[in-house]
């Protein structure tokens, strides 16, 4: 294939730069390794943060538009169900559901579980494969519970086993494990114990006319900010959270953690910048010798500079490709084991979940630009 002379000239320079790198591999290898490490760490950080944000967005899309919590003295307290009736009268509100939920701290295992209730008449949409067993939720007994896989694994439970929970008076209550949530719901149900509402009220000591909070579905979800303001005016002792606010909260939290981790990485970046500066500030003795030989055999200054430019470009490109490949493998194949505890959050019952394949075009370009 005949190439234009200009391209052929650059290819010849690349040939020579590759040969130069191979000859001086002992000097080039540390550069490539450090550069690869920097790209790997920055890429892993950005890919993980992007994936977590995307994951939160994708799943929060099914959340209720508004959450109404009663607050006394800055603390969330149970909300009376009369508030639900007042909210239901608002024309923008499609449905109000009281949530009954709480946390249960197992001092023996030092784990915190989430207890939540469901109404026997209300189940997931038919065909949704959320349980590992095929169960009719409306046929479950009052003493039967559904649990997440993390809780079951931690307690060593299988369907049919007994589940012992302590109520608000300190008395143990015995339930029977009816089913487990599937792995596909782990991110939401890993530490969840789902109990029917009357039993959970007894466990939490919640009065029949109260709920932990209210979730509100709207006729027009895009109006949630405006409706939230109206509802907050309607119930002055309550605060109203919007789904968009939650999404922004998650974005801020992940961004904050990513920024904190990047701050830690800044030390490494500074060290690398020092290395790059020392390399760019002046050629080494061997490079001076090589440049002298090239000039002696007739190379022009421009060609020598081009050769040096190509040499640096090849190092950057190789490190970029290796670093991005390593970051992809780390994040998408090995579940970002190095960064996940730092970025995702902390809990003793940590769920296993795959980060979604985000579209990292912007991130890749950013890394390439940094390279």
């Amino acid at each position, binding site marked *: 294939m005949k190439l234009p002379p200009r391209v052929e000239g650059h290819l010849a320079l690349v040939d020579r730069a590759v040969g130069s790198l191979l000859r001086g591999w002992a000097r080039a290898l540390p550069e490539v390794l450090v550069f690869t490490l920097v790209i790997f760490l920055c890429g892993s950080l950005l890919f993980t943060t992007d994936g977590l944000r995307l994951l939160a967005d994708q799943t929060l899309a099914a959340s*209720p538009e508004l959450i109404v919590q009663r607050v006394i003295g800055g603390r969330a307290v149970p909300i009376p169900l009369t508030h639900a009736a007042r909210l239901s009268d608002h024309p923008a509100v499609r449905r109000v559901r009281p949530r009954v939920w709480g946390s249960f701290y197992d001092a023996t295992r030092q784990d915190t579980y989430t207890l939540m209730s469901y109404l026997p008449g209300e*189940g997931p949409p038919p065909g949704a494969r959320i349980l590992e067993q095929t169960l009719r939720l409306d046929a479950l007994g009052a003493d039967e519970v559904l649990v997440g896989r993390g809780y079951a694994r931690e307690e060593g439970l299988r369907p049919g086993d007994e589940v012992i929970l302590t109520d608000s008076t300190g008395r143990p209550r015995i339930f029977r494990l009816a089913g487990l949530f599937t792995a596909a719901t782990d991110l939401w149900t890993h530490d969840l114990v789902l109990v029917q509402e009357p039993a959970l009220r007894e466990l939490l000591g919640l009065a029949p006319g109260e709920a932990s909070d209210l979730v509100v579905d709207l006729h027009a979800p895009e109006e949630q900010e405006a409706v939230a303001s109206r509802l907050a*005016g309607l119930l002055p002792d309550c605060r109203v959270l919007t789904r968009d606010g*939650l999404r922004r909260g998650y974005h801020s939290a992940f961004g904050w953690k990513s920024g904190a981790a990047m701050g830690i990485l800044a030390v490494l970046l500074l060290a690398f910048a020092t290395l790059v500066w020392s390399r760019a500030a002046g050629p080494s003795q061997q490079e001076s010798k090589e440049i002298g030989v090239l000039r002696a055999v007739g190379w022009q200054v421009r060609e020598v500079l081009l050769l040096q430019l190509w040499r640096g470009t090849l190092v950057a490109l190789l490190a970029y490709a290796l670093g991005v*490949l390593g970051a992809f493998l780390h994040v998408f194949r090995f579940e970002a084991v190095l960064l996940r505890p730092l970025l995702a959050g*902390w809990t003793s019952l940590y769920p296993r979940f*795959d980060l979604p394949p985000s579209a990292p075009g912007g991130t890749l370009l950013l890394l390439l630009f940094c390279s």
Partner: protein
Amino acid sequence: MATAGEQLRARAGEPTGDLPPARPAADSPVGPGARQLAQAAGLARRPRRMRPPRPAWLFFGLLLLLATGAWLSRPAPRDLAPARATVAWLGLTDLCLTTESPAGRNPALAEPALPLQLVPGGPEPFAALPFFAREATDARPPHGGRITPAHRPATAGGR
């Protein structure tokens, strides 16, 4: 056009590279004239020795290989339908990524990432406890703020 090396070989009586030494016509298995015909058709050229690939192509091939590996390591799209159904059914709002540890557990129990969280300006571990997800209302004045007419309750017919 012959190269300089071929011209020197021809001058020294060596084969020039395009053709093996001419054999007597009687030796030719397809008879006289076939070699000329094959040469005209370009079939009788002795295959050239393959040049080694240029280092530049090898390098760019390596980059292509790494890019392909990165592309193949992307996971397949996940089926989010079960998670969405669960979230919609129970009205869930919090991911199972944090516990209530700073608020509900003994604060003396150290958590691995606690130093990164409980700092001024740090995010609330539960997104439903609004730090960033602030209330969507401006109907009440902030502490120490001025009470504007928007904050006053409307009174029937009064000022």
